[in-house]
C-alpha cells in the first residue's frame, strides 16, 4: 500500500538550497503528539509508580484527575499516531518502518561506535542512510515499547474483561515498557537537545529541514541518494 501511495503522489523536492527535507509534516505531527503524550502519560502515571510522587499529582488536580488524564493521553498516544499511518500523507511513516526494520551491518557499526559518540568522542562507522543505527534502535524501542505498553494498558484499563492471569502479567509489562522507553527518551532528548554534535538534527523535527551540512556529515548515504534521485527527476521533467 505504501508503495502504491508513493507512486501515486508527487515527490516533493527534497533538497532546497542548503537544506534537506528530512521529516514530512505528518511525521513531525506524529512525533510530537507521541512525545508530548508520552510525557503526559509518564507524569500522570508516576502517582501509581510510587507514593513519593503522589503529592505531585496535585498539579493535575489530584491523582484521580491524573489517572483520567492518563487515559485521555493514552488515546492520543495510540490513536493519533496510529492514524498517521493511514491518513494524510502516510508514506513516510511506512518508509520509516521499512528503514527501521532493515537493520544492516553499517547500523551495527554505528551502534558500536555510539557510546563513544554519546560522550562527545568520535567513533568510527560507515556512512549512514536516513536513519543511523542508533536512531533505528530508538525507533525500535519506541515501536515495541508502544505496542507493549498499549496492549498491557488496554488489559489494565479493561481489567474486568480479561482473565486475571493476563491482567497480572500486564502490570510488569507496562512497567517494563515504561522503564525502557523512559530511559530511551532521556537519551533521545539528550541527543536532540544537548549533544553538541547531534542536536542540529532537532530542526528536522521542527520545520522538517536539516542543513545539508548536517545531512552530509551524519547521513551521507541518504544525502547522496537524494541528490541522485533529484537530479534524475529534474532531467525527466526537462
Amino acid at each position, binding site marked *: 500500500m505504501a508503495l502504491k501511495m508513493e507512486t501515486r503522489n508527487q515527490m516533493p523536492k527534497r533538497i532546497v538550497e542548503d537544506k534537506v527535507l528530512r521529516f514530512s509534516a505528518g511525521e513531525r505531527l506524529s512525533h510530537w503528539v507521541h512525545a508530548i503524550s508520552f510525557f503526559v502519560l509518564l507524569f500522570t502515571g508516576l*502517582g*501509581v*509508580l*510510587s*507514593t513519593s510522587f*503522589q503529592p505531585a499529582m496535585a498539579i493535575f488536580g489530584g*491523582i*484521580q484527575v491524573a*489517572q483520567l488524564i492518563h487515559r485521555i493521553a493514552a488515546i492520543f498516544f495510540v490513536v493519533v499516531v496510529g492514524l498517521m499511518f493511514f491518513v494524510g500523507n502516510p508514506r513516510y511513516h511506512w518508509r520509516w518502518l521499512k528503514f527501521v526494520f532493515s537493520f544492516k551491518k553499517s547500523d551495527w557499526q554505528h551502534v558500536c561506535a555510539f557510546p563513544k559518540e*554519546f*560522550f*562527545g*568522542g568520535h567513533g568510527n562507522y560507515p556512512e549512514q542512510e536516513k536513519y543511523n543505527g542508533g536512531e533505528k534502535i530508538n525507533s525500535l524501542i519506541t515501536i515495541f515499547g508502544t505496542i507493549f505498553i498499549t496492549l498491557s494498558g488496554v488489559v*489494565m484499563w479493561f*481489567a474486568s474483561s480479561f482473565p*486475571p*492471569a493476563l*491482567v*497480572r*502479567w500486564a*502490570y*510488569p509489562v507496562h*512497567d*517494563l515498557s*515504561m*522503564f*525502557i522507553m*523512559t*530511559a*530511551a527518551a*532521556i*537519551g533521545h*532528548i*539528550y541527543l536532540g537537545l*544537548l*549533544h*553538541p*554534535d*547531534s*542536536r*542540529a*538534527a532537532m530542526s528536522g523535527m521542527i520545520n522538517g529541514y*536539516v*542543513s545539508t*551540512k*548536517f545531512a*552530509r*556529515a*551524519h547521513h551521507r548515504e541518504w544525502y547522496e541518494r537524494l541528490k541522485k534521485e533529484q537530479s534524475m527527476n529534474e532531467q525527466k521533467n526537462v
Partner: protein
Amino acid sequence: MARKTVLIDTSLCTGCKACSVACKEWNELSAEKTQLLTSYQTQNAFTTKTWTYMTFVEKYEDQKMNWFMRKAQCFHCADPACMKACSSNAITKTESGYVVIDQEKCIGCGYCVENCPFGVPKVDQVKKKSYKCTGCIDRVENNLLPACVNTCQPGALSFGERDAMLTQAKKRLAEVQKTHPKAQLYGEKEMGGTTYLYLLLDSPEVYDLPVNPTVPLSLTLWKDVIRPVGTVAVGGAAAAVVLGVFANLFRGNYSNSDNKEGGKD
C-alpha cells in the same frame, strides 16, 4: 496484639448466611440484587459491598450426599499479594494478622484486585477505592469479636490466638477425618499462613479454592525485579546524560562553532 486467627470449621457450618448479614450490618453495606445461582447460593464473587458470602457445593458419591458450605471472605494472608501489589502503600498488615486497606490512601488503582489469588478486593469505580473484608479490625482492636464470628450460631467460626486456634483445628480435623478422610486444613501454610483458617471437608478444588495459592510470579517479577532494575536503568540513563554533557563540556565540543549546524565536514 499477638497474631489472631479465625477458624472456619466447615464441618459445623449450616450455610445460614448469618455471617454475611452481620458483616453487612456492621460495615453498613447495602444489599445487592441477586438471583439463585446453584444450590442455595446467590452470590459467587466479592463485590465492593459484599465482603463475605456463602458457597454451596453438592457432591453425591456412592449414594452418599455431601453438601459443603463455605463462608468466603478475605484470608488475611501472612504474605499478602495485595499489599505487595498496592501502588499507594494503602494496604498494611497489622501485628494481629489483619490485612487492611487504608481508604484514605487507596487510589483505586486496582492492582490488588488482580493480584489476589482469591479474587478478594474489588474497586468501586465511582469512589475509586478498593474494598474488602476488614476482618472487623475496628471490633477486634477494641476487644470485640469480628461480626461474622460473633453471630455464628452453629459454632462454625471461632476466634482466638493463632496457636490455640491451630490446636483446636487439628483436634477437630482428627475427629472429622473419621467420616471425611479427605478433610484438611487450608490456610495453615498457604500464603504464609492465613488469618482465616479453614477446616475443609474435602480437597480445596472441590471448594473451588486454589490448591497452592501463591503470590503471582508476575507480581514478584514486577515488584522485585522490574521495578528496581527499571529504576536503575532510568537513573542510569539520566546519569549517562549528565556525564555526556560534562564529557562534551570537558572536550570543549560546545565551543566548537562548526558544530552548530551539526557538520564536521
